[in-house]
Structures are given as C-alpha cells and as structure tokens.
C-alpha cells in the first residue's frame, strides 16, 4: 500500500509539473489526418489561429463528459479566431460517427488517428514512460497559439477532472487579451 501510494504521489507530482511548466518552446507536431467525411486535414491549415485539441476515444468516460463543454467552448470562441478539433485514437470512422459525432453533433472537425501516431507526437517525453505515448494522451487538452507554440497541455487527472474546461478557458482568455505596451 505504501509503495502504491508513493507511486501515485510520484505520478501526481509529475503530472502537476507537466501542467504548470512552460511549454512555449514546444511546437505543434505536424499531422495530416482525415475527418469523418474523408477530407484530409493538415496541421498547417490552423496556422494563424488558436487551436484547441482534445484527444479522445468513444469509450473514454471523461472524453464524453467533456464533449458538450468542448462544443460550448467552440461556440463561444469561434468568432475570436479559435478553432477546435478532436483527434480520435485507434477507432473506425463508423464507430466514431455513431458514438461521438451523432451523439454530440460537433460543428468542428473530428479527425481519425487510426494508429495513434499523431496522439503520441503530442505526448510529453518523460511523463509516465511505462505507458504507451498514445495512451497517455487520452482525454488530454492542448492549446496552440497562432505561431504554433503549445501554450497549455493538460493530461487527464481523474481526481481533479476539469470537465468544464475552466483551466483551458482561463488560459485562452489570457492569451486573447490585447497586449499592453
């Protein structure tokens, strides 16, 4: 029990570090994924915009709890040069259409990462190294600025689950504030 507690504590501290550390130096990894209509969407098409990325699966309970709030965020911020995408990991087009798109009626792209390669590209290198890189990214949220710099990355923290995206919204509001000289 003590060993398990120590492991959990170590993981928690690592995750907090990822959440709070500066990630301005990390750029959005390039990707090219198909949406649910078969259109190829490239990461470069979001250049010049703020981009919110949510990495999900249809069965992930936290992804499902967050989904309506993601749509709300998009509705509230799309006029402010903010785009939103979901990257679904290792699932078929039909399944994602049925269980995710038809259920939540997203008005932003849902992209299919059929082998998890793209999700893995976003993963911090030294966090939970014993897990596969795509698995560690499930239910995470990433905010990228118009220059392609990652400004916010939150991995799933079940105990402090932020379904309503309070942290992400706060960072977005901060970045959208006009610069004061």
């Amino acid at each position, binding site marked *: *029990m003590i*060993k*398990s507690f*120590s*492991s*959990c504590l*170590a*993981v*928690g501290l690592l*995750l907090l570090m990822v959440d709070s550390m500066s990630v301005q130096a990390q750029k959005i990894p390039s990707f090219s994924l198909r949406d649910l209509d078969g259109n190829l969407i490239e990461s470069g098409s979001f250049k010049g915009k703020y981009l919110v990325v949510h990495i999900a*699966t*249809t*069965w*992930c*309970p*936290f992804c*499902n*709890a*967050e989904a309506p709030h993601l749509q709300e965020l998009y509705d509230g911020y799309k006029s402010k040069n903010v785009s939103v995408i979901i990257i679904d990991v*290792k699932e078929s087009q039909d399944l994602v259409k049925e*269980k*995710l798109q038809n*259920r939540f009626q997203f008005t932003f792209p849902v992209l299919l990462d059929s082998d998890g390669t793209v999700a893995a590209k976003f993963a911090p290198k030294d966090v*939970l190294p*014993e*897990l596969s890189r795509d*698995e*560690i990214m*499930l*239910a995470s949220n990433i905010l990228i600025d118009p220059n392609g710099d990652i400004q916010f990355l939150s*991995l*799933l*923290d*079940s*105990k*402090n*689950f*932020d*379904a*309503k995206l*309070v942290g992400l919204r706060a960072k977005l509001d901060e970045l959208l504030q006009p610069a004061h000289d």
Partner: protein
Amino acid sequence: MNYFNLLTISLLLKFTSLTAQVGVAEAGYVHFGGISEVSVQVGDTVHLNLAFEIQDGFHIQSNKVSGDFLIPTKIALAGNGLALEEPVFSATHPFVLGDSDETKDVFTGKFFVGVSVFCPDNSTIGSHAINGTLYYQACNDFKCFFPRKLKFETVILVEPDH
C-alpha cells in the same frame, strides 16, 4: 564472495526495487484470484465464485454501464463439457467524474463473478478446466487505458455419482 560481487548484487537489487517502484509496464490491471479446489458429482450443480482483484488505485467499468458508449466489463467462459449458467457479477460502486454531473458504476478492489456449473450425466470423471476471458476497460486516478483482456483458467474435479 568478495566485495565487488556484493556491490554488484546490491546494485542489481536496488535497480530491481526502483524499477518496481516506478512501475514496469504491466499486461493488465486485473488479476484472477482463483478459487479453492472445487468438485462436483455427475448430475449435480456446483456454484463457483470467481474472484478478481483490481490493482490498487484503479477501477474498471461495470458489467452494466449507464451509457452505451462505455465499454462494459464482460466475461466469456468455456465449460469444456460442463454446462455453465449465465454469470452474475458482484455489486458495483458509484464513481463521480470530477466536476461534471456524471456518475458511472465501477468495480474497484475485489469483485466476484458467480456462475453455476452443471455436470451432465455423461461427463468424464476427473479434472475439467473452465477457461475464461475477462474483458475490461480500466482507469486510475490519472489516466484511462485502452481495453484489455485477462485470460484465466480454473479446474473442477468431476466425481462419480455416489
């Protein structure tokens, strides 16, 4: 044994201990607890209580999930000549998803699957293996994990009808 060998051995032990603490990749998060030796007479029925233990800090979805998007825990059993009734899972616990309004039912710690096994009249005397696969999707306090499966086996001793 000289000092160098002792040093080497102690370093190896330390590394093994550290590795275990960090968390070497595991095949799964549920272990089969097994059952005590069970026997049944030909023509009779015996009730099995299959025990499973979920790793500390983890939970798996209930066998009856509230949303059809969740992956329920399922069990597949093969009686190899013995007739198995529908398995019955033990009770679940509610789990609240952070600051959302959603609660899901999960298994944590130990849970059991009860199954009645009927031994037909034409059963051969001796050991019969019951093969099973538990399908589950786990989360812990920090992550959710891709679905996994646990294969297990237990043995029933078939005895003659007295």
